[in-house]
């Protein structure tokens, strides 16, 4: 205890302020040191996905293509819808509806790409023709190549 402070007198206000400042900031630092890592922990990490540039969607005369007129293929972690318009005419789009991210299907009879969740409709160019979607379906490149033993294969690529 300094010599100029006698018991029963008011301590130096500057010293009190300094002590309060230390107390306040160290409490703040304590809180920050708890809140910051917790907040960072709650924020999910980026997961590396292998870059995919090309995917083999199967044979052009795949029974699924012929019967239903479409197939959903895994393009990395994203679903891509490949629609068979003609024997060698295929279209591919992201299968994630631009409205609220449900997965679309192709209605062969109406030639419409349809989303069951909120009744979104896209044509074979991926353009919105009905329902609530704000944007067209992002297109993917698609071409048919000759595979082994003369079978034609459908290859989807980033356009």
């Amino acid at each position, binding site marked *: 205890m300094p010599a100029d402070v006698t018991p029963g007198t008011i301590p130096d206000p500057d010293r009190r302020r300094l002590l309060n400042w230390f107390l306040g900031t160290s409490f703040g630092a304590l809180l920050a040191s708890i809140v910051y890592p917790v907040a960072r922990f*709650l*924020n*999910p990490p980026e*997961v590396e996905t292998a870059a995919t540039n090309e995917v083999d969607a199967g044979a052009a005369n795949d029974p699924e293509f012929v019967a239903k007129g479409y197939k*959903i*293929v*895994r393009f990395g*972690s994203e*679903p891509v819808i490949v629609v068979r318009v003609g024997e060698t005419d295929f279209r591919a789009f992201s*299968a994630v509806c631009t*409205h*609220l*991210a*449900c*997965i*679309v*299907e192709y209605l062969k009879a109406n030639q419409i790409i349809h*989303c*069951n*969740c*909120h*009744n*979104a409709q896209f044509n074979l160019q991926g353009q*919105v023709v009905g*329902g*609530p*979607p*704000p*944007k067209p379906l992002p297109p993917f490149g698609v071409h048919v190549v000759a595979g082994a033993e003369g079978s034609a294969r459908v290859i989807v690529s980033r356009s």
Partner: protein
Amino acid sequence: MLEFARHKTVPVHRYAAIYYFGGMTLFFFVVQVLTGILLMLYYRPTATEAFESVELIMTNVSFGWLIRSLHSWSANLMIFFAFLHLASVYFTKAYRPPRELTWVTGCVAFFLALGFGFSGYLLPWNELAFFATRVGTQIPSTIPVVGEWIMRFLRGGERVTTATVSRFYGWHVAILPALMVVVLGLHLLLVQLLGMSVPPPAADEARRRRPMPFFPHYALRDFLGWLVALGVLAALAALFPWELGEKADAFAPAPPDIRPEWYFMFMFETLKVMPGGSIGGLEYEAIPILGFGLAALLLLLVPFLDRGVVRRGRSPVFTAVGVVAVVYMVALTAWGYRSLAPVYAVLGAGILVWLFAWAIERHENGGGG
């Protein structure tokens, strides 16, 4: 505590039946906690195991089907009674001072209950749940600036994956229950401290008639109601076990009969009828979403907005808004299901309340109690 219970009373009047809704909601919540703890023993929250673990509960675990069905049915009944409780408190304007905070805590508890419903729906990892969660977590992403972050935060990444199941599980069994305990504790404490509100039209009647002692008279009536509720719940769970459906496939189109839980149906239908397009950078779909957010906020603030009820004891505008909201919700739900069942459910609940009120009224007038 005992002394407090001995002195607590409940007013008696012709609308007194509505006082039972809160207790009924609480009862189903307790069932949720108990059956939920049991389900935790077998459930595994990963995309590869969740569906199979629920299947195991439903097929191999003794009485597993019963526990799971009780949990699912009770969840729906809890939400139903929470709706009834909220509506009855709203229409009898029980949020009048000094009960503003009781209303606010009640609303927060209601939103938490919806959060339980949403997070629990995904856990079986079936097709319907998967797409409902995809849509539900995509919805906040339409909010400007922070939307994308909220979506990532909810999903635990860019997509609905195993990370989402574990996250929802964490919310469902730890975070939400912890919040609920605090909010519900406060709500019940306030109800006890402030007593029951008497609807303005019944004020004279309630003054004339002798209030009912809470313990044991009212508590026994509550208990009888819970016994009936348990019977109904057990019958529903036994006769209509909750379906599990198909396992979710992240690379399959949404099934044609895709739909959310019934209490989100009116929002789902609203989203469905919004046309595509944008105005000033804001996509049309964001308009109802922001609208529902605003409506929730307004609901929370009702006691502070409705000044008419403080000054004149009545507020017809708030009653009218409430009626419009209920009609909108019931109509869109019925439309979404292509069935009048929701209308019948609401009418049935109304008739049941009326019968109940009538029976109590008769009983009280007959000198019992």
